[in-house]
């Protein structure tokens, strides 16, 4: 009932969950065997920023526009090309519609 099986694609979520639980238990056991001398509230937990001054807590949040900055920087050209059609003008949306019609009609009439 829970299994999707098409001969080449098999997906059994319940088995997967059992496996996940087993792995989780193993990880927990592993974790408990780790070092025990970690203490809260000492210099061990302080943030270290290459010796620079650590900003106060409110300013530590990374804003969403700064996340994946490198990704957008390297794909600048792609984004430039992709933003250009998204003008936000209804006439342009309809122009794209006409473009699609002008492509589909010859294809359909030509393909018979």
């Amino acid at each position, binding site marked *: 009932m829970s299994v999707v099986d098409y001969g080449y694609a098999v997906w059994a979520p319940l088995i997967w969950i059992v496996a996940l639980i087993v792995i989780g238990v193993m990880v927990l056991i592993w974790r408990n065997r780790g070092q025990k001398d970690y203490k809260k509230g000492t210099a061990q937990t302080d943030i270290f920023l290459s010796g620079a001054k650590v900003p106060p807590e409110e300013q530590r949040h990374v804003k969403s526009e700064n996340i994946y900055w490198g990704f957008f920087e390297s794909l600048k050209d792609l984004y430039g090309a992709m*933003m250009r059609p*998204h*003008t*936000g*003008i*209804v*006439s342009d949306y*309809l*122009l794209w519609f*006409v473009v699609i019609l002008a492509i589909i009609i010859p294809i359909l009439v030509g393909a018979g």
Partner: protein
Amino acid sequence: MMESIPLNFPFLAAALLVGIALYIMLFKRNLIKLIMGVAMLASGVNLFIVALGYRAGGNAPIYTDVPPGPMVLSVPQALTLTSIVINVAVLALMLTMVVHIYRHTGDIDSEKSRKLRG
């Protein structure tokens, strides 16, 4: 095939009306003109559908004191009636929205009044 073209003026008119309406919607930046384009498109489509049902020399399909002769097809007329009312409704709502857009931005140019893009 060629001799049928002179008879098909209503269809030609409807198709051209659709074309002109699309032209208006594509190249005019004034939102009121855009709405006019939608209205023209609706008229073109309605004209097309009602012209489909015509039978040469036919009477209106109403039996009250009808002179003898064939009757034109009745379904296209009903469809057109439905479609006209639908378009009135759509236009009313569009105009309301344009009134609001004008209230907010002070402009009905689609380029100057846009807030959403990208």
